[in-house]
């Protein structure tokens, strides 16, 4: 068996004395797109900071490509929910993407610049390289953040509710963009979201979390055909069956809480 890209075993984490994560185990195989959903306030964001190495875990272990995590590793990129804070407003879009490549070695400045331009083109922002983030829309800012994350050629993309703050149409566009980029660049992705429809639409596998202290209560395969289609996929009987199942699970926890 190959080593999973990301592996979390029996992870627990408390913040300020409150247990947030209680014995959580999950793993992501090469090339998989995994969605993680759970009831509001179940500790999804805390989980992501632990999986990304931004926070140490209290017990258990997180490993990335077989290496135990101790801080953010090489080869992993994070996309944050709050794009307006994750981009540096005093740098132009292309310079923000370049900023994501500071730690890349063995690549010349020219190659980096070319790569930054290429990534901005890949997210559909060819004409906005020299704009500042605050001169473009929220959806475009999140595209810049995606370009920055991809520019450093990570093996794993962690996405923390990246589309929670954009309007519905933009959300659908960026969902499809993320799916095609993940496919094109063969990335392993882990998307944390509170949107059940989005979780199923995007993923090969949906992981459902419990209330705090959170752990995995369901791990569901999504056998929907690819490439996904906003209209066709969402009306597949299998999509609706999964949707009902996940929503029921989450509702049962809301009443239990």
């Amino acid at each position, binding site marked *: 068996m190959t080593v999973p890209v990301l592996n979390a075993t029996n992870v627990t984490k408390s913040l300020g004395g409150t247990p947030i994560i209680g014995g959580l185990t999950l793993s992501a195989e090469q090339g998989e797109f995994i969605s993680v959903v759970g009831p509001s306030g179940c500790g999804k964001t805390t989980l992501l900071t632990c999986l990304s190495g931004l926070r140490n875990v209290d017990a258990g272990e997180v490993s990335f490509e077989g290496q135990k995590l101790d801080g953010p590793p090489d080869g992993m990129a994070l996309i944050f929910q709050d794009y307006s804070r994750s981009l*540096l407003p*005093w740098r132009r879009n292309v310079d923000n993407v370049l900023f994501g490549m500071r730690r890349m070695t063995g690549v010349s400045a020219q190659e980096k610049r070319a790569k930054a331009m290429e990534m901005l083109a890949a997210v559909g922002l060819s004409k906005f390289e020299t704009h500042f983030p605050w001169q473009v829309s929220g959806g475009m800012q999140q595209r810049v953040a995606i370009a920055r994350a991809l520019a450093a050629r990570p093996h794993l993309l962690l996405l923390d509710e990246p589309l929670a703050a954009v309007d519905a149409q933009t959300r659908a566009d960026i969902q499809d963009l993320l799916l095609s980029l993940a496919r094109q660049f063969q990335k392993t992705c882990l998307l944390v979201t509170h949107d059940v429809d989005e979780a199923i639409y995007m993923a090969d596998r949906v992981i459902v979390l419990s209330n705090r202290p959170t752990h995995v209560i369901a791990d569901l395969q999504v056998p929907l055909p690819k490439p996904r289609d906003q209209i066709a996929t969402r009306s597949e009987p299998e999509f609706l069956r999964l949707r009902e199942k996940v929503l029921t699970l989450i509702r049962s926890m809301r009443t239990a809480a």
Partner: protein
Amino acid sequence: MRRLNVPAIVLGLLLLGAWELAARAGQNSFFPPFSTVLAALWANGGVIAAQIVDTLRRAAIGLAIAVAVMVPFGALIGRVRFLGDIFEPLVNMLRPIPPPAVAPIALLFAGTGDAGKIAMIVYTCAFPILIGAIDGVRANHPMLTNVGRSLRLSRLEIMAFIDLPAAMPIIMTGIRLAVAAALLVSVIAEMLLTTNGIGVYLLRSQENFRIADGLAGVVAIAVVGFLVNDLFLRLDRRLLAWHYATTGGAEGQG
């Protein structure tokens, strides 16, 4: 080009007119009318300009030293708790000491030449800049640090490329306070540690009862002070265009 601020200009002219009329009515040789002061400014223009250049030069050097030292120092104090615990009480203790009170010490250690005066200016400028830098980096959203860490930057890189630029709006406010103080203290330092500069010119005019000449110097300082402040205001609007654009501040992308 900015539009002329007509009401402010009208107010200025009214005040100068009132000065002129009051002085002419009073007929007091210690209170010359504005027209006499203007004539004195014209007559002494060369001397005043030369003195002001000296005053400005020292103010600029003092300000530059204070910025170069205090911005990184403040960022360190603001970010590293251990350093904050050590230095903040000291800063708060030194801060209320008025600049003229340090003049004797400056005189003792740095002499009456440029060094003593520049030392006084650095001392005065240090506090608003230092406090701006400390508060500035502390006001930064913690998420910014996470962005830097997730890009695997070192602490120093996060400070230089994320913390400091993000804190610039607050640091710039401190710097603009320091600019005004630098000019003020540059003049005061000259009056206390006499050698040259516009402060000395004022002192000499006063001692020789050349009231109009002295007032001409004051008017010159006022004009220069206004221009310097305006320069920094423009600099602020330009450097921090991103800040004013995202917070909807005055003049937008100016």
